[in-house]
């Protein structure tokens, strides 16, 4: 077999050359790779290291423990209770459905819920825990723990949730927390990232809302390493957050519980205030609601029931309820006239039962008239005609100025929701808002707190505290934040002649201590506890001539929501006032019958720090009072038990 020669020196050299070219290309390519590798691993190393860390390290926020809200003595009004829940992890459970059905024999869990949980479990990655049930009691947790081997992947966990042990008693002041809503986030310029934690709750109303930042604290954080699918591999480090600060309120839990019980489910409000410091000792609006319902997520049915209740349980009547102050305004009118120098202490005015002003007849509440009355007896007997006269002498401008000094038209800066400024009318106000000139009739109405004047129970209490002390006491609700006592600025004097105040005090003392006083039946006989007060009955609806003809004469004949509001303001003890009280019973009828007895009980309770001895009450009433006290005691006890608003953890 013969073939041409394969190898010649020439072909050999050519192959060597070609191999050199191939080798050169390979070397160039490897050089490029090496250069690229060096560039990435040496020059850009830090950058890539950062990216690698960003990949693997996640920050998780640790929600801070919310601060407690307590009363002035440390009784917890809003606390954190341990919330036992049970979670399932799919990858540990294997057959989730079977595990859940076994669990259903231990805790209440209906088939629909099981189906819903199964669906939810499948939506998440297999290692993500899904909550099955919350707020289990200790026995249920123990049952689950005991049966752990039969419940793979199902574990009880414990977390903290807000709890209001006093139930409905402090619902309006303390408020409640709820899940963060879109609107909450919109309201904030730079929302705290902690708000994004699923299930995080923030204050919705009351102190919980208005002191949210103080109570919330600052979130801690955990740096955790995760893998590509997000599974947590380990915790790298942890930075504990700052728990929220505790807030101690000025409220007295025992007193507020009593006030709430004494209002007895009426649509009413009662405020007790320290006349020197302005501390609000009780601020109860009735009826109330259980704030714990809101924390757990209130049902639509329950919520609608609260919304549709004519007694408006959701409203905090102490600060947002506005009522014509009625006769409780007469002290303002009297002081306006005194300051104007238009009346002396002794001057008597004749009350025939009416007064004709500008062609209109204004009646006194007592049709027969009071005869000749001076200022003290006019207050004591609540003679309207006397104050019609005083109002005309002082004029609306002075009345307006005096009312302003007593807090009308001021929205006090309290950390609760919807604090109203009320309405202290003036000529300017009427022109601006009603487009009409102030008429003399308006002044007559204003004299007895009717017409345009509106005040909240809080403002009524502030007024009586200022009357009692002669100083511009400002109400306050926060005693201490994080253990630091809040300063009480000394209230500036109202700059009223002490003689005038003594006169007013005498008149107010007569209300409940003089035989002819409008609240004489609500007097306190214990000399060290005697109270000064003023009744008020503000008209909601004028009985028309037609109704009068049809036989409607008395308040009781009217439907509830057309009856008069009953008001009472008081301070006590008369000689050295310590507390000021206001009570408003919506559509309660008359101040002397509906509001004054409540105010008296509150005053005694506040002064004695508990149910007072029967000897403080007038002799003939003691039997009735004793029965009432027993009833109250029972109601308070059941409130203290049932009022925890939930099971014990």
């Amino acid at each position, binding site marked *: 077999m013969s073939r*041409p020669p*394969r190898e010649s020196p020439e072909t050999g050299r050519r*192959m060597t050359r070609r191999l050199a070219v191939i*080798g050169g290309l390979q070397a160039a390519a490897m050089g490029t790779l090496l250069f*690229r590798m060096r560039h*990435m*691993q040496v020059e850009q*190393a830090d950058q890539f*290291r950062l990216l690698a860390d960003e990949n693997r390290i996640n920050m998780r926020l640790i929600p801070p423990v919310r601060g407690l809200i307590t009363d002035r003595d440390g009784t917890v009004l809003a606390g954190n209770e341990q919330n036992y829940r049970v979670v399932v992890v799919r990858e540990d459970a294997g057959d989730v459905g079977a595990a859940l059905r076994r669990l259903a024999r231990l805790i209440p869990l209906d088939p629909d819920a099981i189906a819903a949980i199964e669906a939810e479990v499948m939506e998440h990655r297999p290692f993500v825990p899904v909550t099955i049930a919350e707020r289990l009691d200790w026995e249920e947790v123990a049952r689950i723990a005991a049966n752990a081997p039969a419940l793979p992947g199902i574990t009880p966990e414990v977390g903290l949730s807000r709890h209001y042990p006093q139930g409905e008693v402090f619902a309006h002041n303390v408020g409640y927390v709820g899940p963060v809503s879109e609107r909450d986030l919109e309201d904030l310029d730079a929302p705290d990232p902690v708000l994004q934690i699923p299930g995080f709750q923030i204050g919705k109303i009351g102190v919980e809302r208005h002191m949210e930042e103080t109570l919330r604290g600052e979130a801690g954080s955990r740096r955790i*390493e995760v893998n590509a699918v997000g599974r947590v591999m380990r915790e790298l480090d942890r930075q504990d957050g700052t728990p929220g600060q505790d807030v101690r309120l000025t409220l007295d839990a025992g007193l507020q519980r009593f006030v709430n019980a004494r209002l007895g489910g009426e649509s009413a409000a009662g405020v007790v205030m320290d006349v020197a410091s302005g501390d609000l000792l009780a601020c109860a609006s009735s009826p109330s609601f259980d704030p714990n319902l809101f924390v757990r997520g209130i049902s639509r049915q329950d919520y609608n029931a609260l919304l549709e209740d004519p007694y408006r349980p959701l409203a905090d009547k102490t600060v947002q309820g506005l009522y014509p102050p009625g006769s409780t305004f007469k002290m303002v009118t009297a002081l306006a006239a005194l300051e104007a120098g238009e009346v002396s202490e002794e001057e008597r005015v004749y009350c025939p039962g009416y007064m004709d002003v500008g062609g209109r007849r204004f009646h006194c509440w007592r049709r027969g008239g009071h005869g000749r009355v001076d200022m003290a007896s006019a207050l004591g007997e609540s003679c309207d005609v006397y104050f019609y006269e005083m109002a005309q002498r002082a004029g609306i401008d002075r009345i307006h100025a005096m009312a302003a000094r007593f807090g009308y038209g001021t929205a006090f800066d309290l950390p609760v929701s919807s604090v109203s400024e009320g309405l202290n009318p003036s000529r300017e106000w009427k022109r601006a808002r009603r487009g009409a000139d102030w008429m003399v009739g308006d002044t007559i109405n204003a004299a007895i707190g009717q017409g345009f004047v509106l005040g909240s129970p809080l403002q009524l209490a502030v007024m009586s505290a200022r009357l009692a002390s002669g100083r511009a006491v400002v109400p306050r609700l926060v005693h201490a934040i994080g253990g630091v006592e809040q300063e009480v600025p000394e209230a500036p004097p109202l700059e009223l002649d002490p003689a005038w105040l003594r006169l007013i005090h005498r008149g107010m003392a007569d209300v409940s201590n003089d035989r002819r006083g409008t609240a004489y039946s609500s007097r306190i006989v214990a000399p060290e506890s005697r109270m000064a007060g003023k009744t008020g009955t503000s008209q909601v609806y004028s009985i028309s001539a037609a109704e009068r003809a049809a036989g409607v004469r008395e308040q009781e004949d009217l439907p509830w929501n057309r009856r008069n509001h009953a008001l009472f303001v008081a301070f006590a003890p008369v000689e050295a006032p310590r507390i000021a009280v206001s009570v408003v019973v919506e559509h309660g009828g008359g101040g002397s019958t509906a509001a004054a007895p409540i105010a008296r009980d509150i005053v005694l309770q506040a002064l004695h720090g508990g149910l007072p001895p029967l000897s403080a009450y007038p002799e003939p009433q003691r039997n009735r009072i004793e029965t009432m006290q027993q009833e109250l005691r029972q109601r308070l006890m059941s409130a203290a038990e049932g009022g925890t608003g939930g099971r014990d953890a």
Partner: protein
Amino acid sequence: MTYLEYTVKRVPSGLAKVLYVNWALVVLLVAVASVGFIMLYSVAGGALRPWAEPQMQRFALGLAAMFMIAFVPIWFWRNVAALAYGVSLLLLIAVEFVGEVGMGAQRWIDLGVIRLQPSELTKITLVMALAAYYDWLDPQKISRPLWVGLAVLMVLAPAALVLSQPDLGTALLLMLGGGAVIFAAGVHWAYFASVLGLGTAAVTLVMASRGSEWQVLRDYQYRRIDAFLDPSIDPLGAGYHINQAKIALGSGGWTGRGFMQGTQSRLNFLPEKHTDFIFTTLAEEFGFVGGLSLLVLYALILIFCTASALKQRERFPALLTVGITASFFLYFAVNMAMVMGLAPVVGVPLPLVSYGGSAMMVLMGAFGLVQSAHIHRPRGRA
């Protein structure tokens, strides 16, 4: 050349062959494979299973196969080259019909005993066939168009079949590997220049026509080209993987994060961390020093093989060694370029390091051929 001619020129025979094995190359292969074992141990989270142990077994098997092939005289391999080429073409056709789909392409053929990837086999048989072709061809005719055309056809036939699987990466490797043999055989450089020129012109034309009235391809085809060239425009698909690979590689720094300390691979951010992207784990855990070391090992393999080829006086063993060396080079260069973001992700494993049986066996077989060529080289008359 006949057996007689070989023996006359003192070709080692019998047990003496063992002395003439290119032992340096064997040591280098074991070294590279050991790097693979270490990395597979690491990516398994410090365990021999599921990857390191099978890989060791396969490598042992591969070594045995290499020696078996090495001791068979080289002319035998020359004589069966055409047959082997024909068989692999048939297998490539067969895989079209009975192939199993893996990774989105028809690549595997199940022979019961082993699962065969014909495209891997073809890389070797094509090189063998081309080397035998130029061994047979009169050197005077090498650059004649007819004979060049025949060689090109030999390359394009399997490349087209592989491309239809579709496996663009392997098809390109086949063409480049075949091209290297044709180039080394001494075909006139003008052919290569014109192919390069025409190819560049065609690509330029196609890309330049985009958006004009005489646009060659449809819009969606251009978009596919875009995504192929720049994976970052497809961040959820290939872009994610190449990004994570670059992060792993870059975060290694000079000396790496330490053995089994690579967070990218340990926490599963790396895709295919035990196969195509194993180099990134190496670079992450051992840094630039580690990557450089592997590259040096590869370079040494190239150098020893090329040196062996240069000593050959025969065309077949020389071209066979060159072709196999070029294919080996293309394997690791394309893989590294891919994980460094220099080349599109085409699915080429890192030779001897990536986990995988078929590629490992074929590669060890190819080095068997290189060894056979080395052993059966006539050693002068001395």
